[in-house]
């Protein structure tokens, strides 16, 4: 999607150049220093808090409060060691990976299944049921946390990772997103052919639909992972300090009578690094996913 648009934009540039730089629209204008300057300023502003976090984390707290250093110091590993002593960092990291990983796999599979049914199968009540799915997008599930908490306590699941995972196993957004994609990307003829060859529904799904939707499923997976990784309110309520996710552990790091900035920001830096790596590796796909989702949605 993005590449097509890019190609259009670049042919636009060529056209604009031919007409001696007199571009007809905003999209065809060749940007000057001002545009690049503003964008660079914007991105520096975007990156600054990350840098600040590392900057503080790499200094001694006492030294830091005396003056404002501009370059990283050599204290980062010392502070990181103190973080490991203060909170169950590795456990929190592992928990976050387990929770986000499980939620991601489940959301992708269950959303794709439902999306397949809504896009390609005919059944009674399909239209109204799909409308219902879309309507649930407007229901803020955060507001139902009180009964949810009571239910988890009743079942004895409070404090377990299951309590964080189960409510998020499938999302309305996922179903909607996969339905849109499958409707476009999987030809009806292909499904009919598979059925004629005697495939059961589930085999048709597995061998025909699933291979065709890999890009959309990957996108949904990335978004779900990030959303789950950043979830805070519900894990804060249902988990305890001994068995936290990363976000809950960071919160614990900060609460106390005396706040040691170098310690706290060493913790935030350490928690940010994994997700930054994911972003550097998958950033291109994330960008493409947002742009594609926006056009379709």
């Amino acid at each position, binding site marked *: 999607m993005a590449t097509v648009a890019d190609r259009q934009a670049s042919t*636009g540039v060529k056209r604009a150049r031919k007409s001696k730089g007199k571009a007809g629209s905003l999209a065809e204008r060749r940007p000057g220093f001002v545009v690049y300057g503003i*964008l660079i300023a914007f991105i520096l502003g*975007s990156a600054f808090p990350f840098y600040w976090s590392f900057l503080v984390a790499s200094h001694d707290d006492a030294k830091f409060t005396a003056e404002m250093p501009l370059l990283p110091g050599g204290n980062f590993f010392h502070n990181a060691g103190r973080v490991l002593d203060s909170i169950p960092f590795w456990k929190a990291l592992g928990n976050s990976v387990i929770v986000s990983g499980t939620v991601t796999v489940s959301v992708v599979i269950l959303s794709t299944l439902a999306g397949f049914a809504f896009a390609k199968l005919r*059944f009674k009540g399909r239209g109204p049921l799909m409308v219902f799915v879309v309507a649930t997008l407007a229901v803020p599930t955060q507001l139902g946390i*009180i009964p949810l908490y009571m239910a988890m306590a009743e079942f004895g699941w409070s404090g377990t990772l299951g309590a964080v995972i189960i409510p998020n196993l499938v999302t309305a957004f996922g179903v909607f997103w996969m339905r849109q994609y499958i409707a476009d990307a999987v030809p009806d003829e292909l499904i009919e052919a598979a*059925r004629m060859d005697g495939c059961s529904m589930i085999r048709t799904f597995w061998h025909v639909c699933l291979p065709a939707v890999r890009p959309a499923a990957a996108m949904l997976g990335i978004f779900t992972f990030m959303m789950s990784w950043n979830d805070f309110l519900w894990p804060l309520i249902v988990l305890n300090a001994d068995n936290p996710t990363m976000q809950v552990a960071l919160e614990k790091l900060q609460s106390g009578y005396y706040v040691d900035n170098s310690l706290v920001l060493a913790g935030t*830096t350490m928690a940010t690094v994994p997700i930054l790596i994911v972003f550097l590796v998958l*950033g291109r796909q994330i960008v493409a996913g*947002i742009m594609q989702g926006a056009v379709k949605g």
Partner: protein
Amino acid sequence: MTTELTVTRGRGAEPRPPRRDDNDDIGSGKSWRYKLTRLDVKFSPYLYIAPFFILFAVVGLFPLLYTAYISLFDWELGGDEQPFVGIDNYAELLADSQFWNAMVNTLSIFAMSTIPQIITCVLLAVLLNTALRGRTGWRMGVLLPYVASLVALTIIFGDLFGVQYGIINDLIEMIGLDRIDWQAERWWSHVAIASMVNWRWTGYNALIVLAAMQAIPRDIYEAAWVDGASKVRQFFSITLPMLRPTLIFVVVTSTIGGLQIFTEPLLFSPSAGVNGGATNQYQTVVLYMYSSGFRSFDLGYASAMAWVLFAVIIAIAGINYLITRKLATSGEA
């Protein structure tokens, strides 16, 4: 249509296994294989969509309805009995100055974050829509804040906005102004919290708007250019009206998210916690709800608050929908 076709073909293609009881239904051709296929076609779709509906019923719909039920009781966590109090919780809530304070804070932070954000993200999208070199790099650059962990960033911003040692106050002093007590002063604390929201979401929304901009047909701009419309005029007469559905989408999603703001005010200052500052100067509704329900253990009261907030969210999302529609339409000349 599809099902009917596949069923017929499926039956035709399958050689029926020779079975003695076939004689029982002569002419109908209903072998066990056929019946299975028939069941498969009929029930598989429901099976595939069932996980969503079951899960939504259990963790979405039921809790929301049960919240309404609890809100009618004096429901203390760990209490022996829960007496029915009818609408008392709601009455108490509407008379609770702390609730109104939290509501005003929420709306104030929401307005301070949404309005500048929408304007900035449209302008940013215009810049990104030029023929930049290294397009994907710029797009990833503006998206950077979106991926960062919210808790980590809130803590970092709390540090940046520190009163004595915060770099933002250092900069303010450098240009000759007085240091601001970002945590203690009500409106300044809202500015600080809104700035975190803006910092995080502007780039993301800019990409959504950018995608919509690229979908606008180029012929329209060419026609406008031939007619002598300036670029500013083109922006207001073509771009903005064509972006209407996307702007509505962005505004409605930020309304739903913005009114549930929780993490930022909770962690803005290490000492304040669930109170949102010494005088609740930046306590939001969800924060107050959390505080009532999980710190004071007054679940009935917190539930009433959840429902009032739900009603407010629906109402404001609706109003914003209408305003955005109107604004983007009036640009059409």
